[in-house]
């Protein structure tokens, strides 16, 4: 739900369904575009750009998780498997068959989607904890068994595949440094957000939400729940596969260790923190889950290495000795506090703040 300024009336359905309904919103979006495509990449420095790339990768990865859990109610704990399928498909197509990167990336997405359908099939029969077990099986069967034992051996490269410089290019545009990766990431994030937001407000999206809220009621109303659940798995897997194929550009290498079970859990954490059932939630959650550990790492470094702090508080070096887990514990505590005090996630808080200013000074 959103609010428009007083006196702003719509005459056509087109206006009513527009993404950006007022000039003020258009202005904000143009400013955001200038920030994302000009100010940040040109003035932020390479370190912040590389952090942004990880945030972007997390957004791309978590988008499918949000679709499955947040919109369709199908809990997944094996999403890293679909990322891995996309990444490996893309790399193998580029290295073995010399297929151009954009086509390899799309095929990677399709492979991820089809692989996801395979593990989504049990969702026609089982749900809840049993479905979680099925998706966990996807993780272990795909990454630990299929990719590690078989796919990684293709071409005799050993476990890690390295991509020679100059392999990743889109037409004449060579993706060769973090700034290029950043632009690709920004385009993909916008594209994914656009696709996801439009899907959610279409017939398909309404069917997914109906299944999430009550699948039996949805079926009685004529929703083919098997078809729509499998479609949700396909789209989520496609997003995952594309995200995996994007990750390849960032690193120029891929190995099964990049797609371990912890990453699947991490992605669920992203949407829990950001807000389940919200596209904003994916973005806020990804920012939180990337920036907070990075900030904590810097904080621990400053506190333990700076002589001023160490002289003032001589116990600080113990953070590197006996209390190594302070960083992890602080991060875990932040998640717990969010779940207790803001169970709807950061996106809900964002929604409240936005509406406060939209309705100001009558914000009650």
């Amino acid at each position, binding site marked *: 739900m959103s609010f428009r300024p007083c006196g702003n009336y719509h005459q056509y359905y087109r206006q009513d369904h527009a993404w950006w309904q007022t000039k003020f919103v258009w202005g904000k979006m143009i400013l955001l575009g200038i920030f994302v495509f000009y100010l940040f990449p040109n003035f932020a420095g390479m370190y912040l750009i590389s952090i942004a790339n990880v945030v972007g990768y997390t957004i791309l990865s978590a988008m499918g998780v949000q679709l499955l859990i947040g919109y369709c109610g199908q809990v997944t704990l094996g999403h890293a498997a679909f990322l891995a399928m996309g990444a490996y498909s893309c790399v193998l197509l580029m290295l073995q068959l010399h297929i151009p990167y954009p086509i390899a990336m799309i095929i990677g997405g399709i492979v991820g989607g089809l692989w996801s359908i395979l593990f989504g099939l049990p969702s026609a029969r089982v749900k809840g904890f049993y479905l979680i077990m099925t998706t966990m099986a996807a993780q272990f069967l795909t990454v630990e068994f299929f990719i590690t034992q078989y796919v990684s051996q293709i071409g005799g490269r050993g476990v890690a595949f390295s991509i020679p410089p100059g392999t990743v290019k889109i037409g004449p545009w060579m993706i060769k440094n*973090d700034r290029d990766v950043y632009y690709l990431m920004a385009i993909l994030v916008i594209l994914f957000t656009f696709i996801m937001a439009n899907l959610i407000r279409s017939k398909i999206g309404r069917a997914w939400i109906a299944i999430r809220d009550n699948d039996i009621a949805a079926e009685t109303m004529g929703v083919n729940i098997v078809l729509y659940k499998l479609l949700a798995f396909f789209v989520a897997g496609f997003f995952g596969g594309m995200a995996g194929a994007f990750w390849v550009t960032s*690193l120029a290498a891929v190995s099964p260790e*990049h797609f371990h079970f912890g990453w699947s859990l991490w992605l669920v954490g992203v949407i829990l923190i950001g807000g389940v059932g919200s596209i904003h939630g994916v973005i806020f959650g990804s920012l939180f889950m990337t920036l907070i550990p990075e900030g904590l790492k810097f904080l621990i470094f400053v506190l333990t290495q700076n002589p001023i702090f160490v002289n003032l508080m001589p116990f600080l070096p113990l953070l*590197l*000795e*006996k209390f190594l887990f302070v960083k992890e514990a602080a991060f875990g505590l932040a998640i717990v506090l969010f779940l207790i005090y803001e169970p709807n996630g950061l996106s809900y808080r964002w929604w409240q703040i936005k509406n406060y200013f939209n309705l100001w000074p009558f914000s009650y």
Partner: protein
Amino acid sequence: MRMRMMVLVCFVLCFISSWAIGQEVRLGALQDTTGATSDVGKDEALGVREATQYFNDAGGINGKRIRLFQYDYGYRVPEAITTYKRFRDYDKVVMVLGWGTGDTEALSPTINADKMPYLSSSFSGHLCDPKKTPYNFVYGTDYSTNARGAIQYWFDEVWKKEPKWKELREKGVKPKFICFMDTASPYATAPIKAIKEQATILGFEIGPDQHVGLTALDTKSQVLTAKGFGANLVWHGNTTMSVSAAIKDGHVLALGADHIINNWGFDENLPKLAGPAAEGAMGLLGCALFIDEYPAKNRVLEYAKKLNPGIPLENRLIRTVQGWVKVAMAVEAMKRADKAGKLNGPGIKDAFETFKDWPGLKEYGGQLVTLTPTDHRYSSIVRVGRVVKGRPQTVMEIDMRAKYPDKWAGWLGY
């Protein structure tokens, strides 16, 4: 109010001045102190810090102080990537002391593009071929050579000589060999191809690989499979914690096989964790154990007591000494690069490649180091240890180049 302002200004000034850039050399260290390999990573991180302090006290890099930027990445590859970018773009280090095989191999294309020397705790053989990874260096005999040496030692010294295997030996039975490792971990899988090739050379029968996670606490199904196969020798490719779980399960289920352990799984903690099950277990050693006698021991003890007094010396491991080895090798390369007036990435790489029988690591129980522009294998000497009466100790050193002179060149980058 004014007082408060003054205190604040003093504080800020002190803060800024303490961070002011002087004559310093910036060194990045990526550590795992909280992740899947923290069982060995914590101690290594301590060693790196203590060694850096020592070298600073001893004059740094030709008078320039080393400033160490040490971060934990919890063995998470994305965090390793952002940390590396932080080293490169924010901390502006001249070289990086890396950690795991997964992140080192993943970062390899990036560091080569950035011309950033990367001295890693991963001794993966894949990182030793300068044609593919010109900026990667290791500070121990590579995993593949080590694995070949270990299995060679077992065949020559145990299978052929020990009464335990006399009956089978006399029957002319082929030794049965099986590998336990985390199949999704590049560290654990790095030497598998080499060790299996060596097993074939020696005429072993090779059983099915068994997946044991790096954080595994129960390995009974893997041990039962190994028992069903009739394994005489088990290779453990993980770190100490899961290796000790596997050895204990092997003991409980009467596996009866001998154990050989990769170097990050063999240390003073193994007998503590596995108890009597660890007796006789063999493993690879990159340098002296913390409990051993070695020329630099007093120095290592002194800095351990001085900088990290909260950690009892009896809890220290070989990993501390490995931290010293890592820093000592990096310092030597930086000193040579500085003397040549090229204290930067390509300069440090060139300096590493001038190492010829460099004896600096002998003080820590390491080997003579020779690196060339065409071969980044640190040494061909494999140091094998064994747990005897509850205490790990060195039992033999094997020179694999001398033993296989015709094959040695072909094993580069294996």
